[in-house]
């Protein structure tokens, strides 16, 4: 899945000359810039927090975290400012990958390695390395789980509570979900979009439950909005269905473990991506290799696993 | 204009009016407040569309769908409501709507030049053509409005109460302009409630009453004032000041003003007003009389000095304190300072006292309404239905509602700023009577008026204010109009 094999080899050759040491060992002092979307919902909040903490952990890293924003124009300016400030590496979780591609290429051309987190740029030249969650895979996992549970009922009613519809990640998740369901002859009967917030989840779910008097399974894309989803379900006094969460928050894990809620499982979507991004950026900036891999150079792309976790 | 009819939703403003204007004459339009004068001229200027009737211009029937159309015909209008835009400069206001421009780009220098020229001819070269109009006093805005009317190549110029905000000197100036226009063959329609002005400037008169023509094209010389009043009001009104002054009832001053001043506006003034006494402030526009009243009332924060009511000192800059001590102010600009235009009449009347009718914050609208109705009837407010929106009342009736506010409130010190501005002869007499009645009951009245005759007729004592200084204090019986005018001019130009 890597079209730039040549470049990777070049890098690998360069890196091979350097012995791989322990990655935790302090190296040169480096400045890393981080830019992400507005902390409008919990997952982004956790991502930013994670990056921040990771930065604090290393004595040799100064992490500059710019204001989270959903305005791509502003995010572009933040990257431009990082380029001007000549930071050693940049970690970007773009609000919209396509829109930030050009400025990321500028950064790369300026010799600053860019680590692309979660939402992918539209050009492979835009990032030195990319850490992706698997949004499509999330949908597939959730759909497959439902297929397993409801395999014998082909008239089952499946509902989906999506996040912000206009984000590609939501579209990927929904696509995966749809594809997995259609494999076992099911389809999404009712679908609402919330906005990744607790209140949005509550509101969308309350209406959904009214529109669908009988449901067998629900997949909720995001456990942050899941707090609201559960509140609405509890409020409506409904429990004829089971629910699968998404992204996996601590709250939801507790619910699953307790066993007395409609949530049976959640599809994990790691919030540690940005923290990993900072780690990799540090290695790139210090021109070090990855000690934990056999192929010790920092890889081109890392796609994180999105497993279903059950109680 | 023949048989002009204009209906508003809820009111018939004009019900068959005839008006006939000749070139080179000053045609006066008379009528009580609400008779339909402004409505008539707005029909003529294209601002309103008539419900019925026809307009003939130079013998041909025309329709005037927009104000632009009227201007193109050669009809320019100075409206009663100051029709200037505060955010624009004098020159821009003068040429608003017919800007001197090519391709949309303004010719600023030419406009400034022409404006300066117009202002000079209007006797006000000191008004800077580049000044924002919002920073001019009301009289200055009126001049701008006049300059605008003159900037059109008009054959008919309509002036709706142009003298209301002007003082005697300015009125002279206005007349000079009107005469010059007439001599050039321009027709002028002139509306005013001051009958002596009509006598001096008018050629012919049309009288409106209740939206109908009561008399048309009377020659000014042949019509005695008494007859005009009878035509307007339908009965005889003896235009006086409600009888002789009552005079102070007691020697204990009710209102004491001590060394009061407002930096840059007026110098320290000291005087007092006793119960039953009427004190008048005379002076020219811009002399600072309104500011003295407003500072006493606490609407402006005094720089120095103090105000006492019945010996108790008022807190500086606190209107609430003044109102609590039963001081009331009927402000100069009714619309912007006094009225809630979209509220019913009774709520306007009880604006300063509704809390008194309320029990623990709970309104008692029935009591409010009946108190308001009582005053409305006593003042012959027309229409007397206090649930009506006050916006639909004519100017004079709105002024009466302002006075009713303080009658309902009950006040010991009443500050009146231009109480008869824009008020018709009938209502004027009623307001004078009211002031008399109040002094008989022991109210101390302090009033500002630009009509010196009014000050002298109504007040016991007069303070002549010029340029922020009190230049004369004395009993009104010891001084006449000319002396006051001389004092004022001396102060203003000296």
């Amino acid at each position, binding site marked *: 899945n890597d079209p730039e094999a040549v470049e990777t080899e070049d890098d690998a050759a360069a890196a091979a000359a350097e012995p791989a040491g322990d990655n935790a060992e302090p190296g040169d002092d480096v400045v890393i810039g981080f830019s992400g979307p507005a*902390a*409008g919902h*919990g997952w982004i*909040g956790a991502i930013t*927090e994670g990056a921040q903490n990771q930065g604090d952990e290393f004595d040799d890293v100064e992490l500059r975290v710019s204001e989270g924003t959903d305005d791509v124009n502003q995010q572009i300016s933040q990257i431009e400012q990082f380029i001007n400030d000549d930071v050693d590496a940049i970690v970007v979780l773009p609000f919209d990958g396509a829109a930030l591609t050009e400025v990321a290429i500028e950064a790369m051309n300026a010799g600053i390695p860019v680590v692309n987190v979660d939402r992918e740029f539209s050009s492979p030249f835009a990032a030195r390395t990319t850490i992706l969650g698997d949004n499509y895979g999330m949908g597939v996992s959730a759909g497959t789980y439902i297929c397993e549970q409801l395999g014998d009922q082909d008239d089952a009613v499946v509902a989906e509570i999506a996040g912000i*519809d206009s984000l590609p990640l939501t579209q990927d998740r929904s696509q995966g979900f749809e594809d997995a369901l259609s494999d076992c002859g099911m389809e999404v009967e*009712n*679908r609402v979009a919330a*906005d990744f*917030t*607790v*209140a949005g989840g509550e509101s969308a779910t*309350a*209406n959904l439950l*009214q*529109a669908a008097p009988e449901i067998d399974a629900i997949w909720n894309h995001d456990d942050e909005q899941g*707090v*609201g989803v559960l*509140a609405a379900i*509890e*409020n409506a006094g409904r429990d004829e269905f089971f629910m699968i969460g998404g992204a996996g928050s601590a*709250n939801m894990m507790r619910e699953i473990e307790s066993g007395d809620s409609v949530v049976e499982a959640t599809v994990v979507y790691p919030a540690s991506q940005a923290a990993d991004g900072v780690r990799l950026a540090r290695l790139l900036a210090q021109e070090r290799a990855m000690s934990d891999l056999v192929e010790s150079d920092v890889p081109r792309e890392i796609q994180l696993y999105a497993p279903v976790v059950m109680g | 204009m023949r048989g002009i009819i204009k209906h508003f*939703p*809820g*009111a*018939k403003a004009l019900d068959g009016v005839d008006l006939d204007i000749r070139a080179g004459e000053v045609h006066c339009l008379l009528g*009580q407040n*609400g008779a339909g004068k402004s409505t008539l001229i707005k029909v003529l200027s294209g601002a309103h569309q008539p419900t019925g009737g026809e307009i003939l211009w130079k013998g041909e029937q025309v329709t005037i769908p927009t104000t632009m159309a009227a201007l193109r015909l050669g009809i320019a209008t100075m409206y009663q409501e100051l029709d200037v835009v505060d955010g624009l400069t004098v020159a821009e206001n003068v040429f608003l709507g017919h800007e001197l421009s090519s391709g949309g780009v303004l010719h600023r220098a030419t406009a400034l030049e022409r404006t300066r020229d117009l202002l000079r001819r209007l006797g006000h070269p000191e008004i800077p053509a580049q000044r924002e109009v919002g920073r001019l006093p009301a009289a200055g805005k009126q001049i701008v409005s006049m300059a605008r009317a003159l900037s059109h190549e008009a054959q008919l110029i309509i002036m709706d109460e142009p003298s209301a905000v002007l003082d005697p000197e300015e009125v002279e100036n206005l007349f000079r302009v009107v005469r010059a226009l007439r001599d050039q063959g321009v027709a002028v329609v002139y509306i005013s409630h001051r009958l002596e002005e009509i006598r001096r400037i008018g050629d012919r008169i049309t009288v409106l009453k*209740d939206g109908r023509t009561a008399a048309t094209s009377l020659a000014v010389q042949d019509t005695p004032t008494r007859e005009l009043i009878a035509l307007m009001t*339908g009965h005889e009104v*003896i235009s*006086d*000041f*409600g*009888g002789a002054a009552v005079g102070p009832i007691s020697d204990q001053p009710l209102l004491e003003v001590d060394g009061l001043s407002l930096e840059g506006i007026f110098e320290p003034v000291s005087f007092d007003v006793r119960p039953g006494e009427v004190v008048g402030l005379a002076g020219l526009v811009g002399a600072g009389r309104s500011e003295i009243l407003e500072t006493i*009332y606490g*609407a402006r924060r005094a720089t120095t000095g103090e105000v006492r009511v019945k010996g108790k000192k008022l807190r500086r800059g606190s*209107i*609430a304190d003044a109102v609590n001590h039963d001081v009331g102010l009927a402000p100069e600009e009714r619309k912007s300072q006094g*009225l809630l235009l979209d509220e019913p009449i009774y709520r306007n009347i009880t604006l*300063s006292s*509704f*809390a008194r009718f309320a029990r623990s*914050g*709970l*309104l008692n*609208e029935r009591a409010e309404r009946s108190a308001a109705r009582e005053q409305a*009837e*006593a*003042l*012959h407010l*027309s229409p007397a239905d206090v*649930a009506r929106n006050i916006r*639909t009342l*004519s100017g004079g009736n709105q002024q009466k509602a302002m006075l009713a506010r303080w*009658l309902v409130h009950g006040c010991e010190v009443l500050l009146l700023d231009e109480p008869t501005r824009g008020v018709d002869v009938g209502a004027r007499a*009623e307001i004078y009577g*009211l002031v008399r*009645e109040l002094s008989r*009951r022991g109210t101390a009245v302090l009033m500002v008026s630009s009509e010196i005759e009014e000050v002298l007729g109504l007040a016991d004592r007069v303070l002549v204010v010029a340029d922020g200084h009190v230049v004369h204090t004395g009993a009104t019986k010891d001084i006449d109009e000319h002396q006051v005018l001389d004092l004022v001019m001396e102060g203003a130009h000296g």
Partner: protein
Amino acid sequence: MSEATATGSVPGADIPAQEELPHRDLSPVEEKAPKKVAGSNLSLGHSLGLVLALGALVALGVITGGDRFLSLANLMVILQQAAVIGVISIGVTFVITSGGIDLSVGSVMGLATVWATTLGTQAMATDIHWSIMFFTALAVGAAAGLLNGVIIAYGRVVPFIATLAMLVAARGFAELISGRQTQIITVQGFTSTFRGDLLGIPIIVWMFLIVALAGWFLLNRTTFGRRTIAVGGNPEAARLAGIKVKRHLVMIYTLAGLCAGIGAVMMLSRTTSGSSTHGYLYELDAIAAVVVGGTLLAGGRGTIFGTVLGVLVFAVLRNVFVQNNLDSSVQAVVTGAIIVGAVLLQQRFSSHSRT
């Protein structure tokens, strides 16, 4: 000019009003005047267009959803949806009537939920009484509103800017307090108290009802409401009539903040959690509901009844959309059209025409 024909007369004085003066009659042409119920805010006439729009939406709901739409349960869902934004909108109605605007209500609500849950989850463990959370939320809301009011009235900052600053600042402050985490309520009494029913109607709906009635009463039947209208209609006239305009403005913004605090309590019970993201963009929804309801943005005229209708229109709209499983982009386009349609309808049928 000597003989006094005293005309005007002061009631209570012993001189009788003079009768010989004929009253000029320019009373309105009765048959042309639209009938108006006293107290324009009560009048159905003013809101008729909106009632029609709401009726049309309900009809649409019934046609597409049948009994399910008309069920009591669905009605309660709609009302519960409407409740939070509804309570906030009541406060905003006062602000807009007074000629101002409050962009901060959504943020302030979020801040209040966070503050209350911080108190209820962390500071004093889980054994505090639920009423402490309740009053904390109210106090935070009112305090933020008070600050708005002081900046506007005494600092003379235009309301748009002052409350915009509060919008930004309160959101940031809420994030700081919560560390951007959603805080789940652990105080047991709270959820059970506010998530219950009374006579088959959820407590939240009761709260909305009570706040709306109280708001109506306050606006139309008290000196406070009268002052609000006066301040909005002509602040200078209100000031010259002796009304303490500044103090009153402070009270109005405090009231709006208080309503946001009440909204926070309802939000807490709806979502069982406090979060800095609660109430995001609620200010726009609230202002839209108020203005669609017929309150003049310029001030001087406000209607609680209209606001409630405005809120309901949006809530029913959303319900009907979900019922019909409409794509969210199509929803947006349709919503835009319906907003304009409702206002045009309202205009057509309202007794008062604006310019």
